[in-house]
């Protein structure tokens, strides 16, 4: 089995749930992924897609966000591409420790950390013309 689907969505937040739904449904067709891993997939895809949509909204980019999902017997890989202004993944500010009073001032900035924890592999390629986030979840 080596199936691939591609989705193009308008850069609107209310499309994120649709992407989660489609990617999770595609992954369920790949019988090697445990249900708990499909839950993880929904989270990381949500993070990457929302970031992509926000990049388009911030820059006024009118073009769609592209999501590609490939399912094989041993893994599911998802690539989310935007045409926003890009970001330096190495320059993201560190989250204050949870006990620090400053922690309650940070309501954002946790998405990349969640992706790195839940995905088996993740790659960020970002430049002035856009960002590509690749997410890989392997079967147990």
């Amino acid at each position, binding site marked *: 089995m080596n199936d691939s689907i591609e989705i193009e969505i308008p850069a609107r*937040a*209310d499309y*994120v*749930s649709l992407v*989660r739904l489609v990617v999770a449904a595609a992954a369920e067709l790949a019988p090697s992924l445990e249900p*708990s891993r499909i*839950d993880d997939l*929904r*989270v990381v895809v*949500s*993070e990457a897609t*929302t970031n992509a*949509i*926000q990049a388009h909204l911030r820059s006024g980019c009118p073009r769609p966000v592209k999501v590609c999902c490939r399912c094989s017997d041993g893994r599911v890989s998802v690539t989310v591409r935007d045409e926003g202004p890009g970001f330096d993944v190495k320059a993201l500010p560190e*989250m204050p*420790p*949870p*006990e620090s009073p400053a*922690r*309650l*001032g*940070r*309501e*954002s900035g*946790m*998405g990349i*950390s*969640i992706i790195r*924890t*839940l995905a088996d592999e993740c790659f960020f390629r970002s430049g002035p013309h856009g960002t590509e986030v690749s997410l890989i979840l392997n079967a147990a």
Partner: protein
Amino acid sequence: MSVTIRRHENPPWTVLRVGGDLDVVGAPDLRQAVVAAVASGSRLLVLDLSELDFVDSFGIGAVVGVLKRLRQRGGDLALVCPSPRIRRVFEICDLDRILALHDSIDGVAEAERLGSGSAWRRP
């Protein structure tokens, strides 16, 4: 699925039962519900996530904002979070280190009965 929020009073707490998806779309609804609860005098809030289907960092961020708003006013927040997969996202973000996560509303009541503030903060 969008987020659903139902509020009921369980003195001295206000309980917000949150269902559906707590993501970038649902997070503003949670913030709005909490602003309304605080404006009406609520200071001890329980977010009951028993019916929550999904949470990501945007939902987590809203919960951080709720916690900040309450603690700035001398109040506090407890979560009812029986689902391991929802709880896991909170744990990845280390919120289990500053928030009390309970398995049920009864668990909040029991911790409250035992005192020492463990209903609201991680011991």
